[in-house]
């Protein structure tokens, strides 16, 4: 009974953590927070008449905003690379599991090679390259599917 309660609590905690992570905004990053804080300081300095400081704070805020934007763009790129890699992997696994007609084995082989390249690029954090390979895999698979459907 005690074990069941503990297990239940653990599941609940995991669910809460998962939902919290999912709802977390990309703005919740240190660079954005720093930029906002610097901007607040800049506006305060401006109100006091310390225009040099105000300008300096806002200039710094812009530097942190650039970093924040780069972070958001990178996170989005990772997400896209990951999603496409997963789709490509699923499609290749599917065709491998069901098998393809001998005439289209070459397409599958090529898709497997491209998938390997996509995975390697992803692991090397070359996300755009990974995306390009994954898209190539999916395009090849789309042809195979059509052919197989005939």
């Amino acid at each position, binding site marked *: 009974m005690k074990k069941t309660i503990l297990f239940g609590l653990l599941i609940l905690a995991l669910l809460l953590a998962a939902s919290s992570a*999912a*709802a977390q*905004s*990309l*703005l919740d990053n240190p660079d*954005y927070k720093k*930029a*906002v804080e*610097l*901007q607040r300081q*800049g*506006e305060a300095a*401006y109100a*006091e*008449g*310390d*225009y*040099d400081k*105000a*300008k300096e704070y*806002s*200039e710094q*805020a*812009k530097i942190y*905003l650039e970093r*924040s*934007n780069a972070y*958001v*763009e990178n*996170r*989005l790129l990772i*997400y*896209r690379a990951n*999603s*496409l890699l997963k*789709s490509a992997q699923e499609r290749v696994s599917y065709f491998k599991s069901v098998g393809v007609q001998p005439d289209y084995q070459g397409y599958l082989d090529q898709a497997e090679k491209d998938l390997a390249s996509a995975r390697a690029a992803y692991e090397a954090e070359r996300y755009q390259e990974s995306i390009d390979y994954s898209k190539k895999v999916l395009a090849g698979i789309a042809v195979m599917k059509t052919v197989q459907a005939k």
Partner: protein
Amino acid sequence: MRKIVILMIAGLALLLFSCASPPEQPEQPVDTTVALPEKELEEAKSLKTRVDDNGLSEFAAEEYQQAESSLQEGQGAYGKDNAKAKTALDAAIASYRAVISKAYPLWVDRSKAEVDTIKTKAEQIKAQVAMKQEYGAAKAKYEEAVAAKDAGNFEQAISLFAEAKTLFQDVYQKTKQKKEAAEAEIKSAQDGIKEAEEKAKAADEEIQGGGA
């Protein structure tokens, strides 16, 4: 016969004498009993230059007119009626002095008012913070001018107020430039924050929505 000739000459002489014009009056003699009022003329001219060069006439128009009129009169009588010239030049000197004594306090007040205007403008945009050192120097000059004014050193006060005005104008202009530069930078950063938020929101939606 001899008697007749004598009578005729006498008659002719009488006739000539009676037809002649009356003798000319002698010219009015130059008054040499009173010396030329050279010092008075020199002083009156010097005071006039001081008044004109500083544009003081506008502060005491009536006194200035009197001074001008007396000076003209004095110059007209100079060397002809020295007593009259001296009296007129003394009057001119007194009037020019009246212009000066009336004009300087008014001029100081005007100078101070001009500095007060630009000083207030500079303070309104917080020059005392933005340009602390330069503002301090301008204010020190202003206070020096006020002290000179209070001590009755009007010419010195006017000169110091003019310096303070230049300093405050410079402080105001530079502060304004700094303020505008800060405003532009703050606006740019505000736009940057908005843009970053929009980008992040779109990315959040894509990720949370599961679209690629």
